[in-house]
């Protein structure tokens, strides 16, 4: 139910504490964190730049979040996605899903990530250690992952 796009890093522990603060009804929280890998297509990565579509990004993340709540009895959800220049080991994305029991939280968190990867308007440009930049191609496996929810 909360969606944020930001250049700043996030603290997973602090986010989790805030996510469940004052709640005694939540029985399960599934947390997913996506990180920048230091290798891309066999090349060592110096950094990557995340570009997005301001306005549509927030709208699309809200639509994805609303769809998750329509499909599962979620008690709460959180999507945080970073933009700008990121380095190997940095956080990129955080998803949390809360429900009374674990299965719903696991499924909804996976759904949120699969939809985010195929629908949210973000684009990654990788810069290798030799300075060459290249836009990341979309992966067929991400489209396949989406198919399992239809």
């Amino acid at each position, binding site marked *: 139910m909360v969606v944020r796009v930001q250049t700043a890093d996030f603290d997973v522990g602090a986010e989790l504490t805030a996510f469940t603060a004052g709640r005694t009804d939540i029985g399960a929280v599934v947390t997913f964190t996506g990180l920048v890998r230091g290798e891309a297509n066999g090349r060592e990565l110096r950094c990557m730049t995340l570009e997005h579509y301001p306005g549509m990004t927030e709208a699309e993340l809200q639509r994805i979040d609303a769809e998750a709540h329509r499909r599962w009895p979620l008690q709460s959800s959180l999507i945080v996605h970073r933009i700008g220049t990121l380095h190997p080991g940095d956080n990129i994305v955080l998803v949390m899903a809360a429900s009374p029991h674990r299965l719903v939280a696991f499924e909804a968190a996976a759904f949120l990530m699969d939809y985010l*990867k195929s629908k949210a308007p973000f684009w990654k440009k990788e810069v290798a250690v030799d300075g060459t930049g290249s836009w990341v191609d979309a992966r067929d496996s991400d489209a396949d992952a989406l198919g399992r929810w239809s």
Partner: protein
Amino acid sequence: MTVKFLYFAWVREKIGAAEEHVVLPVDVRTVADVLAWQATRGDTYAAVFTAAGIIRVAVDQAHAQPAASIGGAREIAFFPPVTGG
């Protein structure tokens, strides 16, 4: 009809602009029409937009399929498949 076009990622780099304001011909009515029209706007556009099926389109900040109408649209965005997450 004057519409704001937005470009992202390598589409933006190849076109050489992040946005432009254009007057659409009256017979450009769908997403497929506007993609075909873009390909007629010179060599740079042709190189980007004749790669049929690659460029994705959003109309007023929502994903739009080729058959979707662009009637009344204020903002049309063109971009490669998304790669966030």
